[in-house]
Every structure is written in structure tokens, then in C-alpha cells.
């Protein structure tokens, strides 16, 4: 049984799921999730990156981080594909938001059930 489960998992690519759940600036979590993704990708680990909960606010196009002496989080995030983090998802919720430009960020909207599968099939899940 155990072997079977292991071998059936081999058809999936091995990946780490990094789940960002906090808003862009009130804590360091958004930044820490971002840096974790770079750190993993840096040594060749496949990363899937999912925004959920308050993390959707990291993607708001109108954010003006300079008002609070920070670097724009969305700009930092948009460098993820340069570091070979290319599977980027936003957990879709009831409230679709016009303030997010998912297309230009190449972010895939993901349904709740698909997100659960993504978690289940990850070799590791980190939540920040």
C-alpha cells in the first residue's frame, strides 16, 4: 500500500508549496514568503507559490509603498518568474477584485478544490 502510494506520487513533479497569507506591509510575512521562494528556487527546488487570504492585497496594483517608506511588494513579486518561480496562483474567493491585475502578473486563479489538491500533492507546504 505504502509503495503504491509512493509510486503513484511519482507521476507528479516534486514541489514545495509556499503559501503567502498576510497583507503586504503590516508584518514581514509577505517578504519572508517571497524570500523563501527565491531561496528554494535558488538550489533548484521546484516552487509553487499561492496567495490566499489577506495576501491578495499584495497584488493590488494601486499600492503606494513609498507612503510608508517601503518597497513596492507587487514590484518585488513580479520578479518571481526571473528566479524560475513560475507557478503562481491566487486562491479565488467569493469577492472577485478589480484591484488585481492577475493577467499581467501571470497569476492563475485557482478554485478551492484545486488548491486543496495542490497542498495534498506537495512534498512540503510552508505557510507564511
Amino acid at each position, binding site marked *: 500500500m505504502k509503495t503504491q502510494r509512493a509510486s503513484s506520487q511519482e507521476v507528479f513533479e516534486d514541489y514545495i508549496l509556499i503559501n503567502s497569507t498576510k497583507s503586504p506591509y503590516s508584518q*514581514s*510575512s509577505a517578504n*519572508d514568503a517571497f*524570500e523563501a521562494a527565491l*531561496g528554494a528556487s*535558488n*538550489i533548484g*527546488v521546484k516552487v509553487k507559490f499561492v496567495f490566499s487570504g489577506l495576501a491578495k492585497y499584495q497584488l493590488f496594483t494601486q499600492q503606494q509603498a513609498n507612503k510608508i517608506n517601503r518597497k513596492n511588494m507587487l514590484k518585488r513579486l513580479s520578479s518571481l518568474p526571473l528566479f524560475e518561480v513560475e507557478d503562481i496562483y491566487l486562491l479565488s474567493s467569493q469577492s472577485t477584485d478589480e484591484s488585481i491585475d492577475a493577467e499581467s502578473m501571470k497569476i492563475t486563479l485557482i478554485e478551492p478544490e484545486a488548491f486543496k489538491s495542490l497542498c495534498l500533492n506537495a512534498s512540503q507546504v510552508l505557510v507564511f
Partner: protein
Amino acid sequence: MATDNTAFTLIVTKSPFDSRNAESALYFCKAAIAQGFAIEQVFFYQAGVQNASLLQQVNSDEFDVYQAWLELHEQQGVRLNVCTTAAGRRGIVSEECALNGNYNVNPPFEQVGLSDYFAALTSSKGVQF
């Protein structure tokens, strides 16, 4: 006793006093080792880097988290790795990185990069605290 050769890598992301995560992680380590599982490393990230501060002064009748980490290392050889970037920002600095003579991190706590943690995950199971 462990029926397989699972090894664990722990990541601790909260500071002592402002959470009990370090203590939960310590209980996990002890119970794992008692059953023959290996702890590949404990990695301190985010506010978890505060665990590495040698300046923590605990009342003699209170649980001393810092001391417990030292004992875990001495008795079981568990590696205690601190994310350098997360640490510097939060004033957690080893002698090597000290700018003005003062520092608050000594061995066995070691400052490493995030890559060290993710490399460990390729051969062990991650548990976040």
C-alpha cells in the same frame, strides 16, 4: 521505535515568550529522537531567530528555551541554523557579523542562508513551528 527512516527538519518562525512554538518544537525533537527518528536540523526563520539570542535572561524558576536548545545540540548533535538575513534585521548577530563589538549569537547556533534549509528538505520531512 521508528519503523522507517524518516528524518525531520524543523523550521521555527516565532520568538520565545511571544509564542510557545519553540517549546512545542523541542517536545517534538525529544519525542522523535526517543523513537529513533533523526532531526536533520532546526532552522530559525522570521521572529524565530530570537531563539538564538544568548542574552535572554530567564528567571530561575522558568523554563529556559535557550538552554534547552543548547542541550538538544550537546546531547543529540542537532544542528541549530539561523537564517542570517532574518536575524540581522532583528538584531540577532554573531561575533563574525558584529559591527561594534557586541553580538548575541554564539555556537552551536550557526548563521546560514535559506538555501541550507531547503537543501535539507530534499532528504527529510519538514515541520513548521
